[in-house]
């Protein structure tokens, strides 16, 4: 018996090859259940595997009986699975389920399916089951009972996609990672990604926010008025964005979005009425900033925030929004800033631009209220 085992070990060891052969009818399906730590790369306790080997039953019994030198008569429906099961020990010698290189000892059950007609073969289904060792990270499969190439399919529970591989008999599979690997994105990468998302949410995607910022820019010819308003707006939307993302406050978009449109209309219309910054304007802009912050929060919720880098993503998204707004002001200044000291500035720039913004905002208000 020791001789047999040694010889079999030699067979299994020597049969590892990479050359292509004819493809047979054997299929192996590995399923992994539970115990996977999300993103952890390792498996916690409670995970299980089950492996189905589907293969030609007569061909397998033939090999087992020849190797054991126990040739028998033609199998029948009544004794087929029992006769296969009688060779369980021998069968195990050429099958290996290994976790991180350590071989596991699965439970093995043999079953056979009768052929659909008298020229088709019997199919054996051998199910190997067991517990995934705690802390295991990789599974390797080896099957030495076929001379043909066969397909191996490995899938984690709840995942649609399976890993597939063509293997030769006796060839070890590529080690399969048991848990979903954590995406390797650095903090700097996340910061840049969310900063860009924040910026593009203003330019070019946030036309309403752009018009609001332009509305702030248009009032008054002095830098001080712009500075005050933008500061109040920034402070306010940062507060509500943060609070909303932490789930402390919340308002449905059906309320927030029309209010944002009204705030744009208000600023534009006030630009038409007033010529200088009044204290209440700053207060109102602050209040509007609170609204816009909740709007940003809606967008950020849709994008999703990485669990591990929540604060990084939140702060950098806000910074991106800020950069977008400052860019709008810089572009506006480059376009019409040289006219600000001119007496015709209000007549030819502020009034028509504010009028256009007001019209757009009123239209949006009506549109958004219809939801």
């Amino acid at each position, binding site marked *: 018996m020791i001789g047999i085992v040694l010889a079999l070990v030699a067979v299994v060891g020597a049969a590892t090859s990479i050359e292509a052969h004819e493809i047979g009818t054997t299929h192996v399906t590995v399923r992994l259940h539970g115990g996977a730590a999300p993103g952890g790369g390792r498996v916690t306790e409670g995970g299980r595997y089950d492996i189905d080997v589907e293969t030609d039953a007569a061909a397998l019994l033939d090999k087992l009986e020849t190797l054991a030198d126990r040739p028998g008569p033609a199998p029948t429906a009544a004794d087929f699975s029992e006769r296969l099961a009688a060779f369980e020990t021998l069968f195990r010698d050429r099958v290996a389920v290994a976790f991180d290189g350590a071989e596991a000892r699965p439970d093995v059950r043999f079953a056979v399916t009768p052929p659909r007609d008298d020229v088709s073969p019997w199919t054996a289904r051998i199910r190997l089951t067991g517990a995934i060792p705690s802390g295991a990270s990789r599974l390797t499969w080896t099957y030495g009972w076929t001379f043909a190439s066969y397909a191996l399919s490995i899938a984690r529970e709840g995942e649609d996609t399976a890993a597939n591989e063509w293997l030769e*008999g006796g060839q070890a599979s590529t080690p399969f990672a048991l848990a979903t690997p954590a995406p390797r994105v650095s903090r700097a990468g996340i910061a840049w990604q969310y900063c860009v998302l924040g910026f593009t949410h203003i330019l070019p995607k946030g036309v309403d926010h752009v018009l609001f910022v332009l509305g702030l820019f248009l009032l008054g010819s002095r830098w001080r008025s712009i500075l005050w308003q933008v500061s109040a707006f920034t402070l306010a939307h940062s507060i509500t964005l943060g609070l909303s993302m932490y789930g402390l406050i919340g308002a449905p978009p059906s309320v927030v979005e029309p209010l944002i449109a009204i705030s744009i209309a208000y600023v534009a219309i006030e630009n038409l009425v007033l010529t200088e910054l009044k204290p209440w304007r700053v207060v109102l802009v602050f209040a509007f900033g609170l609204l816009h912050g909740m709007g940003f929060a809606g967008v950020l919720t849709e994008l999703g925030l990485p669990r591990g880098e929540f604060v990084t993503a939140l702060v950098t998204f806000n910074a991106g929004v800020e950069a977008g707004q400052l860019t709008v002001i810089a572009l506006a200044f480059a376009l019409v800033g040289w006219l600000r000291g001119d007496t015709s500035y209000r007549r030819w720039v502020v009034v028509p631009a504010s009028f256009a913004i007001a019209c757009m905002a009123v239209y949006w208000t009506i549109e958004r209220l219809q939801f």
Partner: protein
Amino acid sequence: MSASAPSAATRSRTVRLVVVLGVLAAAARLGAHDFWIEPTTYVPEAGRIIGVRARVGDGFLGDPVPRDSALLDQLIVEDAAGRRPLVGHDGDDPAGLLRINAPGLHVVGYLGKPSRVELAAEKFNAYLAQEGLDQVAAARAARNQSGTGARELFTRCAKTLILAGVAAAEQRDRALGCRFEIVAERNPYTMAPGQALPLRLTYDGRPLAGALVVAMNRKRPADRISARSDAKGRVQLTLPSGGGWLVKAVHMVPAPADANADWASFWASITFDLPAPPATTVEGRS
């Protein structure tokens, strides 16, 4: 030119077991497998439909190969009525179905398309030794290539002889048109164990001399009987027992210049059932 292995009866069970295991271990090292046809029965009644199963493996132990148009050129039968293709669908095992229309000898052939394989030096050298391809090994040694791997195009030609009804001497195997082919020159269904079966090997229609021909029995695949073909491509193998037999040979030539390969190999096999005397008939799968 014939030779036979010592009778299995003279060996102890242990010795035979070691031989079986040795053959399997060697086969696994080779990475080059035999290819043959195993019908669901060799001796059907007229009117029956039988399955023609293609098998890949070693030592008559094998696995089914479903029909695959990427590998299969022709799956045909020749009987008294002539030649016809066997029906079958891609992916099916058996690769083809054969309806036995009339009694007589049916010569079934699986004519494969060339397939590509790349083997490491050690495996390729072991396989050359196993298949008796000494000239190829010598050519590689002369070119200092023995330490390098080889790119190979291999082509299968598997035949089986199926008998419906009563055997007769005039029922003959025949060449089906493989580039490398084994043809039985006597109807094995008219033979008894212990008699010599004459076979002829042809490559590109001409006799092939010096090829190693190996025969093995379904029940004792480790007891190999082998001989080399003579100048006329002939070989005689004395088959000691009844039951299913596989006779096979491999021929190898330098690959054509445009094939992007080093060697082209041709794998010929023929299977049949040698009638056992009634007294020694053992129930078993064939």
